[in-house]
């Protein structure tokens, strides 16, 4: 049967969310002839709709439903109602993302084995490894058109990169380049080359940056096998007496509740909403939430060790011109415990506009110390620090029954405490980042605290043993065979790299597995 599909059609695969994981999975399944209904809470915005204005764009795209925070992380103090910076729209956070597309390093698939026991951390090896993922990474790089892979050229370096590069070289760093970016350096796959607009975070109006919103989703729809229902917010996953899922209850654009039947359900609502949905789907049979016999749903929330370093120089940089994140130093991403922490971090160019700089440079700051920093905005360069953070059982998404969302469901509370390893790594990264800019004559540097989380990972983690996690090596839940998790919440550990290439590679691999199992009559 071709799309659109009937609510009672129980032969469809329902995918919840259309971001990096869900958008790719939906398209890949559709390409294989599988009937898919993708339910997306947000609306559909395409390059013509994107806005070159930070706050206006934020209002257009950001996920702003009620959320609460707790824990010792600074975000809980500075942005207590906004723990994350992610998108509610077709395409999910791939509309916002900067495009940095890095493979895990081989050892990062085996963090527990490589790092050994770390007190307070719930480290675990992934049930998959680098060799297994290699072909899927290649497919993901080709899909996203990642520069510096598959014979694709790197992007040209912008002002912000030139400053970073000069500082890095002065310090003796070796591996410095304009990044592996899902941004076209030349026309590719029907999408334009990057025009150095500089609003990558606000949605790329040239479509030069890959996003599932205008790459995978329309392709899937063109097969006739994919129906995307936008402004369809899933409230609950239903199951039968045999413990198999049978469909999902959602609120449509008019706020009416609908029940879509399903043969298979794939959850890809980002690492906050996915565990929340499983918890909100508790029933008599599954009193602690769906797929939660291990008690691991919502736990081990990771957000990467992050921070930024901005620096002011005596001459103009104009860092906002050109690609937001096309610049990287990878020398510190190695595992080298002699630095005082396990795992590693990347340093990547980052620019934000004046409006966001005012909000994020030193949240809560005021007076001349703050304003003289902004006075130097034109002469500023910036980098983002992103490294592996330690999974901790107590860092978790729970249901906050005191606060309800617009549908009357308990809001998610995001609890996060920094692990001592995260703090040691951040301090090291601040020091190195500052040294890079000092080496090219910075007159002042700003070790800037983490923003609301953009990399949300790990809350339905993959594990060999059903006791240790929520899903197996295919993203299939240990407890319910026709329920899958297809987004960043599968991550067993976070690695140092930006996560999306890995989310996409896992989604392509999962589509292959699901289609195969359906054909074999196992699903």
């Amino acid at each position, binding site marked *: 049967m071709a799309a659109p599909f009937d609510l009672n059609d129980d032969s469809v695969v329902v995918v919840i969310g259309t971001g990096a994981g869900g958008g790719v999975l939906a398209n890949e399944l559709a390409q294989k002839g599988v009937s898919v209904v993708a339910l997306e809470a947000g609306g559909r915005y395409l390059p013509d709709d994107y806005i070159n204005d930070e706050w206006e764009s934020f209002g257009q795209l950001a996920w702003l439903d009620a959320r609460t925070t707790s824990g010792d992380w600074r975000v809980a103090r500075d942005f207590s109602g906004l723990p994350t910076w992610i998108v509610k729209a077709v395409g999910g956070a791939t509309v916002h993302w900067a495009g940095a597309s890095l493979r895990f390093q081989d050892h990062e698939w085996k963090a527990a084995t490589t790092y050994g026991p770390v007190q307070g951390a719930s480290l675990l090896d992934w049930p998959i490894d680098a060799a297994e993922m290699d072909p899927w990474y290649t497919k993901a790089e080709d899909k996203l058109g990642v520069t510096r892979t598959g014979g694709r050229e790197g992007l040209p370096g*912008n002002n912000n990169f030139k400053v970073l590069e000069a500082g890095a070289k002065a310090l003796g760093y070796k591996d410095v380049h304009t990044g592996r970016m899902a941004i076209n350096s030349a026309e590719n796959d029907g999408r334009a080359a990057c025009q150095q607009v500089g609003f990558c975070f606000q949605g790329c109006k040239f479509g030069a940056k890959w996003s599932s919103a205008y790459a995978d989703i329309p392709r899937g729809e063109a097969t006739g096998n994919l129906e995307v229902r936008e402004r369809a917010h899933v409230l609950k996953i239903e199951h039968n007496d045999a413990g198999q899922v049978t469909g999902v209850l959602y609120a449509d654009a008019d706020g009416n509740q609908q029940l879509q039947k399903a043969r298979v359900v794939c959850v890809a609502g980002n690492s906050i909403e996915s565990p929340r949905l499983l918890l909100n789907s508790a029933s008599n049979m599954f009193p602690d939430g769906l797929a939660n016999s291990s008690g691991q749903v919502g736990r081990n929330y990771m957000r990467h060790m992050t921070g930024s370093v901005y620096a002011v120089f005596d001459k103009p940089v104009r860092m906002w011109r050109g690609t937001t994140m096309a610049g990287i130093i990878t020398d510190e991403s190695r595992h080298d415990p002699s630095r005082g922490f396990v795992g590693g971090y990347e340093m990547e160019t980052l620019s934000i506009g004046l*409006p966001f700089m005012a909000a994020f440079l030193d949240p809560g700051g005021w007076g001349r110390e703050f304003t003289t920093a902004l006075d130097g905005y034109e002469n500023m360069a910036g980098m983002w620090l992103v490294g592996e953070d330690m999974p901790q059982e107590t860092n978790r998404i729970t249901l906050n029954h005191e606060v309800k969302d617009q549908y009357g469901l308990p809001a998610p509370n995001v609890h996060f405490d920094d692990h001592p390893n995260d703090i040691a790594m951040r301090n090291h990264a601040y020091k190195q980042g500052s040294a890079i800019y000092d080496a090219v004559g910075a007159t002042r540097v700003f070790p800037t605290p983490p923003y609301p989380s953009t990399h949300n990972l790990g809350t339905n983690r993959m594990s060999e043993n059903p006791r240790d996690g929520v899903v197996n090596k295919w993203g299939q839940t240990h407890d319910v065979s026709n329920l899958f998790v297809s987004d960043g919440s599968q991550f067993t550990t976070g690695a140092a790299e930006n996560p999306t290439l890995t989310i996409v590679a896992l989604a392509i691999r999962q589509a292959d597995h699901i289609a195969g199992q359906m054909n074999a009559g196992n699903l």
Partner: protein
Amino acid sequence: MTEVLSRQKMTRRELLARSVAAGATFVVGSGFVGAQNAAWAMEVKHLQPGTMATLIQMARDIYPHDHVADEFYAAAVKGYDAEDKAEMVESGIAGLNAAAQGAGFGDYLNAGWERDRVDILRGMEKSAFFQTVRGGLVTGLYNQKAVWPLFGYEGESYSKGGYIDRGFDDVNWI
């Protein structure tokens, strides 16, 4: 600049004739606050003009940029001149003036040195009033498109074709 802040049809002499001085920076009259040189003036409907003048000064003291004129600070706090906010603001500014008197000044605007005014603000940094005003300024001041060029920020670039031919890599001192 915002419509409401458009220069009133008032000469400097008329303005001064109708006004009472409020500190050194502003003139206030019945229903308006303005610049000493009549470069701008702003009507107030729900707040006392003196309250608005104090609020504008407070805004500058929180986020002082010497190259940014008062009218941008005025625009940033204009929204407080609303029926449902007036009471909160009047009492907040009354508190500020009381603190200034406690520190030996006639009122907040009469504390001539920024250092003295900042000391007064530090004393009330944790108050809901201060945090509301400070938090509101982050977007109220820095998200004014007219302010951006004063910091060199160029804003929207898509309509100009991005920076590919307009200096994305023009840094020349590296």
